[in-house]
């Protein structure tokens, strides 16, 4: 592809990335201000908690997706991972397994499916988008076979505290998000493994030449995203207590959109966990706010897509100016 040469080095792009996060934060504040002017209900504590709760599953996934995109990869199958994990969680609930087993099954199935993605991508030379497109079909097939075309509903609320509960007045989801992002940030920015991920994203060939175990790192990164997908499935079931047939259809595209809004470069090497989190909030606030001010939620993809285009154009102008 020869695109690696266009990536700025991590240090050179540092001030720019911070700029992006501030920019996105400012845009988020503007959006919140806009919605609160046109809807009294928007700024209520109840509504903000709802927005937060709705953001938790996508937020968890985006932490993993950020790492994958920084590594120069992509995973369009993550919606399938969430779907399969969720349906297994649902079935486990129906078998009356202890709740700890239910959670473990969700996490393990997610990690396993992510591992499969990683192995295919690392061991063969199938490009990540093709490989995960293929596994997406397979995962959805597994979903259909397990779910049998009928919703799983009326699941027990034993996990609901994960989303609905609160600790010291803050929703538990907030702590989940904080924990996941802190862990991923430490992994990415404070460990050799994280440096390997960035190195692979900047220049895979060079990374291989300096002795980084590229294949192993890739497998681990995709397994990590799978694990987070499994966690997202746990949170999803905890929140809604049912599993729909079409669960997970939009997750992958929304996650990629959020991560790119947050300043990551799809060519790899550059990305920000904080930015991705802001991207998730931006998308979820838009979804919520549009409904509250009485605009059909059908307009939401138009707004998100338009925003994405705007950001991409800003990005190119910025890259050109800085050379």
């Amino acid at each position, binding site marked *: *592809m*020869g695109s690696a040469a266009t990536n700025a080095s991590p240090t050179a792009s540092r001030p720019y990335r911070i700029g992006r996060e501030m920019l996105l934060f400012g845009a988020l504040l503007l959006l919140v201000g806009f919605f609160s002017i046109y809807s009294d209900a928007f700024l209520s504590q109840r509504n903000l908690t709802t927005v937060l709760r709705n953001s938790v599953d996508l937020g968890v996934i985006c932490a993993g997706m950020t790492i994958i995109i920084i590594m120069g990869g*992509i995973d*369009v199958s993550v919606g399938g991972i969430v779907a399969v994990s969720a349906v297994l969680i649902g079935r486990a609930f129906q078998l009356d397994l202890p709740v700890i087993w239910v959670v473990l099954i969700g996490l393990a199935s997610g990690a396993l499916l992510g591992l499969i993605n990683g192995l*295919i991508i690392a061991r*063969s*030379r*199938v*490009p990540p*988008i*093709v*490989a995960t*497109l*293929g*596994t*997406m*079909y*397979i995962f*959805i*097939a*597994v*979903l*259909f*076979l397990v779910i049998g075309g009928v919703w799983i509903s009326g699941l027990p609320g034993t996990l609901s505290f994960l989303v609905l509960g609160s600790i010291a007045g803050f929703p538990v989801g907030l702590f989940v998000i904080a924990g996941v992002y802190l862990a991923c940030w430490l992994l990415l920015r404070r460990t050799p493994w994280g440096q390997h991920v960035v190195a692979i994203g900047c220049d895979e060939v060079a990374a291989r030449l300096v002795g980084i175990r590229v294949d192993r790192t890739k497998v681990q990164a995709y397994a990590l995203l799978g694990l987070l997908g499994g966690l997202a499935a746990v949170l999803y079931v905890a929140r809604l207590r049912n599993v729909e047939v079409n669960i997970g259809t939009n997750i992958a*595209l929304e996650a*990629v*959109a959020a991560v*790119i809004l947050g300043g990551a470069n*799809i*060519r790899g090497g550059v990305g920000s966990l904080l930015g991705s989190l802001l991207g998730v909030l931006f998308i979820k606030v838009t979804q919520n706010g549009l409904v509250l001010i009485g605009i*059909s939620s*059908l*307009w*939401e*993809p*138009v*707004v*998100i*897509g*338009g925003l*994405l*285009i705007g950001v*991409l*154009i800003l*990005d*190119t102008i910025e890259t050109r100016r800085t050379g």
Partner: protein
Amino acid sequence: MRDLLSQRMFFLFGLLVAVGILGAFLSPHFLKASTAAYVLQYVPVLGVLGMAQTLVMLSGGPGIDLSVGATLSLVSLAVAGLYGIGVPLLAACLIGLLVGGLLGAANGFLVCVLKVPSLMATLATMFVFSGLALALTGGSPIGGIPDWFGVLSQGRFLGIPIHMWTIFVPLAVVLHIFLTQTRPGSHIHASGNDERAAFLSGVKVWRLRFGLYCLSGVLAGLAAIMTLSWFQAARPDAGKGMELLSVTIAVLGGTHIFGGTGKILGTVLAVLIVTTLQAALQLANISQAWQLAAIGVLLIGSVMADDAVAARLRTRVRRPA
């Protein structure tokens, strides 16, 4: 490379025969003549989108157009909407093709002028186009397409659907000749193989790609007209899921996702394989889940097999004769 690609064509042909045999085993109804018409009914829409994807991918970059499905939805709504306000249907169709071209030009502008990576650019336009299709109609279909227009996709000539005769086959032949026999065709291959070398030998790489994104939009518009004739109504979600399916078909057909290699013949064989497989499993009353799984395995397996063959060819070349 040429060697590898023709091997691929044999492989795909074998696969098509294998799927046919599988179908005959699975269902006693499969070998009837009516099955062919049934399979071919689905081929043109998917096939035209697959060819659009093939062209965009072939020119490299790497190029991909994730918005083809959304463009299909939006164009079919535009045509039905224009007809609804009194524009003659055929004129509306022409305007629809133009709209498709304009939507493609928006992709082309983002990818080729602003140099936004194609995956991101067309992901964003996919959101916008499919969102517009849903939002402008409030999610409800536009009907009222007259019966005579249904002939294009519902009529048969010699047992074969008319849109196979009039659109799919001629288009495949024209595009095949375009890619193999004309100068722009070889420029497309050159741009996909080595962008820099192509540029240095005077190929206007990005202008060429811009044109292909526009063409991809027009082809999606053509597919939209066929769906409109088929259902006699425009659904705002008509093209949903087709973007990934068209990528699958192009890649299965041997088009390299980073460009440079690919054949229209491969795409045609791939769309036949996918639709035959779907029909066979449907006739045998096997869950749709297995269709999806089969497509997934085919997609990954075929790329892996390609790489294995390529690696073997490479070692053979490296060994001194």
